[in-house]
């Protein structure tokens, strides 16, 4: 069998990119190995842990379960894309402020899952946050601080919206 390389074009963290990938390479391989964006972590590699969560067209997906060629024409957002003009995103600030980072391995995935939830909802409850993070595992088990951080970020985002 002849392995064909495929040229794919996409936007990542606001930047247009074009790369050549093999069919069997995954989105996480594209992000970490090809683009050297190592903020996104690979945990289980089977979609169970959520560490590799990124947004594709605004939707949180496990990048270990998606073929890289599937993002042709799409928009990807990774943890590196949250900072604006050197200023951290409210979610990142809230994680620091609430002490929601322990070993840090699950943090990028947690934040990207929360990005999906908080970008789409004006009001959110701790129960909704727990349900939305059900696909993200923290093996330090620092869940309460993560929920606190999410609620804090929600408050910060709401204040920002009200000021606009």
């Amino acid at each position, binding site marked *: *069998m002849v*392995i*064909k390389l*495929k040229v794919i074009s996409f936007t990542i963290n606001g930047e247009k990119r074009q790369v050549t990938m*093999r*069919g*069997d390479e*995954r989105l996480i391989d594209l992000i970490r190995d090809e683009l050297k964006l190592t903020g996104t972590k690979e945990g289980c*590699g*089977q*979609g*169970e842990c*959520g560490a590799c*969560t990124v947004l594709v067209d605004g*939707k*949180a*997906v*496990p990048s*270990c*379960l*998606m*073929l890289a*060629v*599937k993002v*042709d024409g799409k928009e990807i957002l990774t943890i590196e894309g949250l900072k604006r003009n050197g200023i951290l995103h409210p979610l990142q600030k809230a994680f620091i402020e609430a002490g929601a980072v322990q070993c840090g391995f699950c943090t990028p995935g947690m934040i990207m*899952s929360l990005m*999906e939830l908080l970008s789409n909802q004006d009001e959110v409850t701790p129960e909704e946050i727990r*349900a*939305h993070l*059900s*696909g*993200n595992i923290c093996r330090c088990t620092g869940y309460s601080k993560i929920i606190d951080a999410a609620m804090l970020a929600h408050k910060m985002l709401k204040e920002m919206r009200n000021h606009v």
Partner: protein
Amino acid sequence: MFNVVAPENLQIAIDILSGENTKVIAGGTDLMVRVRQGMFKPDVLVDITRIRSLRGIKKTDDHIEIGATTTHSDILKNPDTPPLLKEAVSKIGSPQIRNLGTIGGNIVNASPAGDTLVPLYLYEATVEITGKGTKELPIEEFIKGPGKTVLKQGEILSNIRIPILKGYKHIFHKVGERDAMAISVASMGILYKTDGDILQDIRVAFGSVYPTVIRIKEVEELLRNQRISKDILIEASKIIEKNVKPISDVRATAMYRKKVAGRLIFRLLEISR
């Protein structure tokens, strides 16, 4: 190693799929794991998620039609989704998995634990197969056994048609090790219609306790036109234990599954309260 093609046209996809060692990929939430574990070594994967006609939910006078590559998240968001299907889909995987995974993938996997299958058996859904032509089959005839369907090389599951049932309520219960990301140990779905405290009509199905999802008609007949009582549910429970044929695996023993399935029917007590 394999190649991936992503045609936008259904007929082109089917032509490619007629070739040897080709396989459909949609959300990939199950297939990617299997391919990476080396359980399956395709030469070509045909990504069908760029075929527009396979995606979306349509409502007709008496049916809801769901395209095979409609994701679980899209099904959850749609106001036309039948309520029991909505509840079962909300228990699938995690939000990330639901953003990728598709209803067609869940059906074609033909897992006895497939969360969408219990509702589809209960609504008596039909599935459309597209190959050289198209044909429509009841879901119960489409699924042949664990991981087995009637699909042949060069055919894909294209559409799911669910009859709209008016005046029915539902119960869905999934027993697993945790709420998220769990493959069920046993699950039960019920569609029912009441007239006062009489069960006018009832349909009962179980997942994970038989080689396929199973409807237990004997229980439905026992309970139809009856008032719910503890006594009649004890009788129903015995019939369920007699009809299920669970296996022992890493998640639970066969005996445990049998007992759990029998006890689940007592959820019906809540409708008489």
